[in-house]
């Protein structure tokens, strides 16, 4: 009776999609999309626990006799352990270089007016449009000239170039929004240019630093083409992504080993994201806003 009264009250209508139901519908749709998205990863993990025979036996996602043989084989025989540490070295090295260099460059570009600034900005933005494939040969040439074409240091250096420009622009945008008074206050305090950057500006750009660290980590960890080219002549310095590719033999593909290696490869990234996702999202939001 009360419901009838409500329904017939002027201006009110019987609404089927209440906010609660709407949330249910949205959740179900998102869950379905999520399943499609996650399936390859689940399949990969499942296959990594199966023997090569079972993978092609099409026995469903749950392995009949799960074993870690693939992992042991990949880690020891296929040198995935070496590749893992190579990748770690390249990632950490390039993150350190990129964060320091892009912050410094972004600071100068974002806060100083000097002749040629617009040209430098223009050139930087232009390089964003050049596909990686075109730069690989000159980059390799450069490394050869520096005598670094067959060393991990060379790979670190080359990997640092990947998204450098985007990070510089992120920092420049952020620093240019900072109030002038902060620098002026430091100047009145007798603090010089470099120390103002290190002690005042850099700590304030933490959201951007986190974003850059995470994005460069993802890029360096997952990059394939550049390490493939640089490590062609020296398999000992392969990174994980290249190492996984090496499971494709001439006549035989070791799917079990490959999926195990792939799982090892993506695990650190997934863990990193779970730990840093809040900062990462904050940083991106901050970058867009500021």
């Amino acid at each position, binding site marked *: 009776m009360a419901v009838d009264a409500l329904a017939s009250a002027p201006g009110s209508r019987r609404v089927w999609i209440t906010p609660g139901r709407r949330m249910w519908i949205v959740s179900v749709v998102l869950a379905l999309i999520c399943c499609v998205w996650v399936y390859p990863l689940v399949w990969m993990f499942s296959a990594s626990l199966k023997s090569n025979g079972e993978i092609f036996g099409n026995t469903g996602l749950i392995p009949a006799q799960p074993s870690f043989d693939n992992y042991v084989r990949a880690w020891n025989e296929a040198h995935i352990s070496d590749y893992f540490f190579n990748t770690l070295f390249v990632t950490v090295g390039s993150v350190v270089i990129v964060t320091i260099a892009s912050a410094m460059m972004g600071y100068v570009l974002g806060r100083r007016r000097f002749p040629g600034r617009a040209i430098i900005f223009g050139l930087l933005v232009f390089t964003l449009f050049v596909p990686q494939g075109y730069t690989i040969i000159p980059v390799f040439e450069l490394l050869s000239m520096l005598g670094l074409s067959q060393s991990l240091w060379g790979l670190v250096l080359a990997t640092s170039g990947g998204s450098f420009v985007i990070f510089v622009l992120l920092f420049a945008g952020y620093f240019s929004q900072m*109030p002038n008074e902060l620098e002026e*206050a430091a*100047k009145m305090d*007798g603090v010089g240019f470099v*120390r103002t950057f290190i002690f005042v500006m850099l700590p304030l750009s933490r959201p951007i630093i986190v974003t850059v660290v995470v994005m460069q980590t993802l890029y360096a960890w997952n990059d394939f083409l550049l390490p493939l080219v640089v490590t062609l002549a020296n398999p000992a310095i392969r990174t994980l992504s290249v190492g996984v590719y090496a499971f494709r033999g001439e006549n035989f593909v070791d799917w079990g080993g490959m999926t195990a290696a792939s799982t090892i490869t993506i695990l650190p990234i997934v863990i990193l994201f779970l730990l840093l996702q809040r900062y990462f999202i904050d940083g991106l939001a901050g970058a867009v806003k500021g």
Partner: protein
Amino acid sequence: MPGVSLKNVKKRYGTTEVIRGVDIDIEPGEFCVFVGPSGCGKSTLLRMIAGLEEISDGEISIDDQRVNEIDPSRRGVAMVFQTYALYPHMTVEQNMGFGLRMNGVPRAEVAARVATAAKILQIEELVSRKPRQLSGGQRQRVAIGRAIVRNPQVFLFDEPLSNLDAELRVATRVEIAKLHRELAGATMVYVTHDQVEAMTLADKIVVLRAGRVEQVGAPMDLYQSPANTFVAGFIGSPKMNFLELAPASEGQHALKDGTTITLAGAGGEPSTLGIRADQLRRVAPDAADIVGEVSVVERLGDSEFAYVRTRWGQEVIARFEGGANIAAGEPIGLALSGRTHFFDRDGKAITGLSLAGSNQ
């Protein structure tokens, strides 16, 4: 020996001259306020003293030493910014001691100086907080504290109260006045567009307009004998009333509606009469110099301001004691009395003229 001295100081941005030859002498220990409408160059002038803006021409000296080419931190000045400019990631303590620490002052001495400044400003319990955990007034104190720890000869304040709400502004104004007394010997240069701040704080006011000094003097000197119509209109609240005068017969001048007034003395040909709201007296309309109708009344409790529309359409403000109960729409007669000011055609004050009496 002036604390701060500016000699023919100029500032150009390209071809635009924003400071056009300014001469000011500020005595040691003096509280000097630069006041003027926005865009008059008062902040630029302060930033030139601070060393944040280059000096295009002229000379600035502090404590008898030319500082034109000296680095801001070596001029013996400290600045308090309008936006406070506290370092957001540092605690109050770190904010105040940052400059000292960066310049190699021993840790113990930094701590001692910060503690002293915190005590003066009564922010001792806030020293471990970050700026975002402070209210506007507290941030302002920290910004002042950062200036105090540097032990400067000259404090520079750039509109320090304009980001505070009205109530806090009055309270902080009083605090700054106390601080000046407490830090005896410290010269303070203070920029504001608010003439009330200028009147209440200053030992010496410098009124600026369009990059030029209009008048320099003690607050009451400017109030009682403004050098021109600009200063007369800018200093004092409400604004001084300006009435146009035309020469009538010998020794007499006429207001716009033909009412004549008689002037005594000599000194020039007045074209404007200035009179403050509190010098207008209410009289019967037939004995009045100005007859009009009250259009708005502002009641402030202790006083009432009546906006009187004259016969020639000008609004004149008159002050009455609280409780006078002037009503809007009421016809009213006002007599000129007390101190009047006369200005010539160029707006310059004419001294030596006064009101001899008035008649219809």
